[in-house]
C-alpha cells in the first residue's frame, strides 16, 4: 500500500502552494501537494504569465506601428494573427506548467491529483477532479497519486481565488467573458466593454486596444487602477486615452442586454445618466474571490471572513494544524504575496529562527498595460491619512536620456518619504519598464534605507533607473537634471 502519511500537505499548486511545497521539502518535511486542474495554478496557466505573453505580442505590434519614428520602414503591414498570438501564450503556460511538474519531482514532493477536502484535523480526502484538462496544457502529469485519504501534521490551504461576478452580469463564456475567455479569443473582436479597471481589466483593455479593438473601460471609482496613487492613476489614464482607450469612471454597468453576437451595456454615471454601449463582448474584471467552498472548512470550524480564510501573521487559522496562504487568505491577491506568505508559514512551522511576519506595506504591485504601472508602499493620500509629514519627489521620463533614446519619454516616478525619519514610505511609477524598476525601491525599503543612502547610491548611466535617484533628489530639493 502506498504511503499516505505526510508531514505537510498543501492544497493547491498555484505560485503560493508550489513554492511553499518546495520550501517545505527543503526544510526536510515529507511533503505532498494536491492539485485538481493545472500545476502552477491560475497565475501560471490563466493569469500573470499568459497575459504577459499576449502583452508582449501587443508591444511588438505597437513598436512596429511606430517603426517610422525610428527610421525604419516596414514593407507591407504588420498584423496580428489571433490564433498564433493565443497559441504562443498557451505555449508559454504549457512550458512553465511542465516546469512546475519537474520542480515537484526534483524536490521529491508527491503530487496528488484531485479535489481535496479536509475531513478532520490532519486528514485530507482526495476525490476525483471536477475539472477537465484544457488543451494545449500538459495532460495530468505522470506519476501522480490519486484519490484516497491522506494524513499530515500540517495542512496548508492554498486554493486561490476565482473571478468575482456581479448579479445579472454573470459571465457566460460567450458574450460576457472573464479572463479565461479573454485569454483565448477565437477571433479578434471589433469592440469590447471592460468592466473594472484593476490590474486584470486594464491589462486586457490595453492588449485589445493594441490589437486595434475599440475598447471602453467602465470603472466604479474615480480613478483607473484605484489602488494606485491618484496622481499616477490620472497620469496613466491620460496615456491610455491617448492610445484610443475610452475610459468612463465613477460609473457602473447596471444591466447587460445580450443579442445574438453582441452585448449592450447600460452604463450609469455618477450624475444618474444612463448611456448604452454596444460591443462584441463584455469582459467582467470586477475582482476575484477566495476559493473557500467545498474543501471542508465549514465542518472543521475554520473561521472565514468575507470570502477569505482568517489567518494570523504566520498563516495559522483558528484550527491548530490548518493554515492558509495566498489569495484564499485575503488581499492583496498577488502571486508574490502568496509565495512569501507560504514561505513564512512553513518556516514558522519548522521554527526557523528569524522568521518575521510579512510587512504588507512592502508588497509591490505591477500592472503591465502600456504604459506600465508599478508601486510599493503608501500612496500620498494614505501617508497623509496616517497623519505623517511627508516629502514628495517626482521625476518625468521626458528629462531622462535613456527614455528619450528608447522613444519612451512619457512616464513619471514619484517617491514619498517620511519627513522626520527619511523613511521611504512609497514609490509609484508609470512608464516604460517600470515593472522592472520598482524592485530597486522594494529592496531599498526592505533594507530600511533612508533618503541619504539612496542619494549616495550610484545609478548606472544611461538607464531609466537614474530617474529613481532623481526623484529622491527632487524630494529634497536637489534634483540635477530637471
Amino acid at each position, binding site marked *: 500500500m502506498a504511503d499516505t502519511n505526510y508531514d505537510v500537505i498543501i492544497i493547491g499548486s498555484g505560485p503560493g502552494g508550489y513554492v511553499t511545497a518546495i520550501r517545505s521539502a527543503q526544510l526536510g518535511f515529507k511533503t505532498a501537494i494536491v492539485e485538481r486542474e493545472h500545476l502552477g495554478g491560475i497565475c501560471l496557466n490563466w493569469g500573470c504569465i499568459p497575459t504577459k505573453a499576449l502583452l508582449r505580442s501587443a508591444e511588438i505590434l505597437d513598436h512596429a506601428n511606430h517603426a517610422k519614428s525610428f527610421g525604419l520602414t516596414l514593407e507591407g503591414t504588420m498584423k496580428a494573427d489571433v490564433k498564433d498570438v493565443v497559441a504562443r501564450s498557451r505555449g508559454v503556460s504549457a512550458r512553465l506548467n511542465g516546469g512546475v511538474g519537474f520542480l515537484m519531482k526534483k524536490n521529491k514532493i508527491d503530487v496528488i491529483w484531485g479535489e481535496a477536502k479536509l475531513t478532520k484535523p490532519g486528514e485530507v480526502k482526495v476525490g476525483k477532479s471536477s475539472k477537465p484538462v484544457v488543451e494545449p496544457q500538459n495532460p495530468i502529469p505522470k506519476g501522480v497519486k490519486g484519490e484516497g485519504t491522506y494524513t499530515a501534521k500540517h495542512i496548508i490551504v492554498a486554493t486561490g481565488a476565482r473571478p468575482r461576478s456581479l448579479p445579472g452580469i454573470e459571465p457566460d463564456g460567450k458574450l460576457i467573458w472573464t479572463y479565461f475567455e479573454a485569454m483565448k479569443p477565437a477571433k479578434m473582436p471589433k469592440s469590447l466593454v471592460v468592466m473594472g479597471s484593476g490590474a486584470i481589466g486594464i491589462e486586457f483593455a490595453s492588449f485589445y486596444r493594441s490589437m486595434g479593438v475599440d475598447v471602453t473601460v467602465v470603472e466604479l471609482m474615480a480613478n483607473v487602477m484605484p489602488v494606485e496613487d491618484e496622481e499616477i492613476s490620472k497620469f496613466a489614464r491620460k496615456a491610455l486615452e491617448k492610445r484610443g482607450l475610452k475610459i468612463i469612471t465613477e460609473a457602473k454597468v447596471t444591466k447587460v442586454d445580450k443579442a445574438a453576437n453582441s452585448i449592450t451595456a447600460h452604463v450609469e454615471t455618477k450624475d444618474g445618466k444612463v448611456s448604452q454601449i454596444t460591443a462584441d463582448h463584455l469582459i467582467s474584471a470586477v475582482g476575484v474571490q477566495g476559493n473557500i467552498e467545498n474543501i471542508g472548512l465549514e465542518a472543521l470550524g475554520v473561521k472565514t471572513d468575507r470570502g477569505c480564510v482568517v489567518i494570523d501573521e504566520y498563516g495559522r487559522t*483558528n484550527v491548530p494544524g490548518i493554515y492558509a496562504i495566498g489569495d484564499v487568505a485575503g488581499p492583496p491577491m498577488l502571486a508574490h504575496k502568496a509565495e512569501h506568505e507560504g514561505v513564512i508559514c512553513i518556516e514558522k512551522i519548522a521554527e526557523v529562527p528569524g522568521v*518575521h511576519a510579512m510587512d504588507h506595506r512592502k508588497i509591490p504591485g505591477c500592472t503591465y498595460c502600456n504604459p506600465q504601472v508599478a508601486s510599493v508602499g503608501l500612496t500620498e493620500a494614505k501617508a497623509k491619512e496616517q497623519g505623517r509629514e511627508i516629502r514628495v519627489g517626482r521625476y518625468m521620463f521626458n528629462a531622462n536620456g535613456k527614455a528619450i533614446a528608447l522613444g519612451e519619454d512619457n512616464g513619471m516616478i514619484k517617491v514619498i518619504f517620511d519627513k522626520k525619519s527619511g523613511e521611504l514610505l512609497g514609490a509609484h511609477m508609470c512608464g516604460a519598464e517600470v515593472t522592472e524598476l520598482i524592485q530597486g525601491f522594494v529592496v531599498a525599503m526592505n533594507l*530600511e534605507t533612508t533618503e541619504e543612502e539612496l542619494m549616495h547610491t550610484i545609478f548606472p548611466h544611461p538607464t531609466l533607473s537614474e530617474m529613481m535617484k532623481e526623484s529622491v533628489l527632487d524630494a529634497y530639493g536637489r534634483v540635477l537634471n530637471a
Partner: protein
Amino acid sequence: MPINITMPALSPTMEEGNLAKWLVKEGDQVSAGDVIAEIETDKATMEVEAVDEGTVGKIVVPAGTAGVKVNELIAVLLEDGEDASAIDTSGGSAPAEKSGGDKVPAVPESSSAIEVGAKAATDPVPAPKNADGDRIFSSPLARRLAKLNGLDLKALSGSGPHGRIVKRDIEEALAAGTGKAAPAAAEAPKAAAAASAPAAGPSADQVLKLFDKDSYELVPHDGMRKTIAKRLTESKQTIPHFYVSVDCELDALLALRTQLNDAAAKDKEGKPAYKLSVNDMTIKALALALRDVPNANVSWTDENMVMHKHADVGVAVSIPGGLITPIIRRAEEKPLSVISNEMKDYGKRAKERKLKPEEYQGGTTAVSNMGMMGVKNFSAVVNPPHATILAVGAGEKRPVVKNGELAVATVMSVTLSTDHRCVDGALGAELLAAFKGYIENPMSMLV
C-alpha cells in the same frame, strides 16, 4: 580591547535588579555560555551568562548590590594578552552609573550623532561600534529612529538577519521602554517620545504559559479586534481621562417622544415616517450642548486646539465581534427625525459590516448607550480625535426629592469622559449642564 559586561534586562519590563552573587572572581577564565553571576528581580533569580571568552578583569558592581540599573556596567572581561591596566570603566558601553561614582556619558558623542536630513552630509559618521570596536549592524532607518528617540543601539539586540538592528527592534524597544541612551543623549528633544510610547503587556507566551495547553482555543484576531485593541490602548495611554457624571430626569422627554412619534406621518402601509428613540434624542441633546459650549467641541493636536464648527456625533454600535462608531454629521443642525432615520440605517449596515470608512472616521464626540442593557452608569474610553464621550445608562424609576418631598421620576445617569488636555473639568461640567438642560426641557431641542 576589554569587553564590558552590563546588567542585562531579563524581561522587557525590567529596569533594575539586584546583583545577588558573583560566580566568578577577578582573574578567572570564562568562556561564552559560562554562568558568571546571579541576578535577582522582584520575581525571580536568574543567571547571567558570559557572551564572550576572556579573563575577568574587574568586577565593578560587588555582589549584594541592590537596584542595579539595566545596562549599567557590572564587570569587565579582558581578552588574551590584555592586562587590567587596559580597563577604563568610564568608556563603558551603556549608561554606566558606577556605584558611588559620577555619571558618565556612556555613549560617546560620535557614535550617537546619527545624521538627520540632507544637511547632514558634512561630517560622515561611522556606523556605531560596540565596546569591542566591532561594527553594530543596523539599518540606516533604525539608526535614525534611534537617534530621534534617544535610544542607544548598543543597548538593543537586533532581530534582523545576523542580528542586524532594524526598525522593528526600535519600535519594540520604544514600546517596552528599554534601550534608552545615556542621559546626555536622552536630552534630545524627542526623548519624551520613548517615555510616552505605549508599554507592552505580557507576551502571548507569558499569557499562554498560565493555562493548560488543551484548556483553551485560540481565535486569531480579525481587523476590527486589532483596531479596537490598538486604538483604545492608545487612548488610555495617551489621553488623560477625566470623568463627570450627572443624573437627568427623563419624564418630559419620554412624554414628548410619545407625542412626536404619535404625530409621525404614515405611508400607505401604515409605516410611520420616523420612530424616535431616547438615544436619538440623546444624540441631538449632546450636539446642541456642544453648539452652546463650543470650547468643548474640540480635538487635541500637539500644536493646536482644533475648534470644530459642527457637532459630528459618533454613536457606538455594538456588533458581533466588536463595535463601530458611525457618525451623525452636523447633528446640531439635523431634525430628530433625520437623526433617527440615519441611525437606523447606520445600525443596520454596521451589523452587516457595510459602513464606508467616511461614515465612521472622524467625528467630534461620541455617545455610548448601554441603557438598553440595564446598565445604571459607566464611563467610556475617549476615541480620538474626539475630546469627549458620553456614557449613557438606563432610564429607570428612582426616588427623587422635589420641593422637599419624596417623589418618583424616571432618571438616567450619564457620565462624560473628557480628554483633559483640551476639555478641563469645569468645561466638561458646563457641557453636561447644557446637555441636562436639553434632556429635561426637551421642547428646546425642537426650536
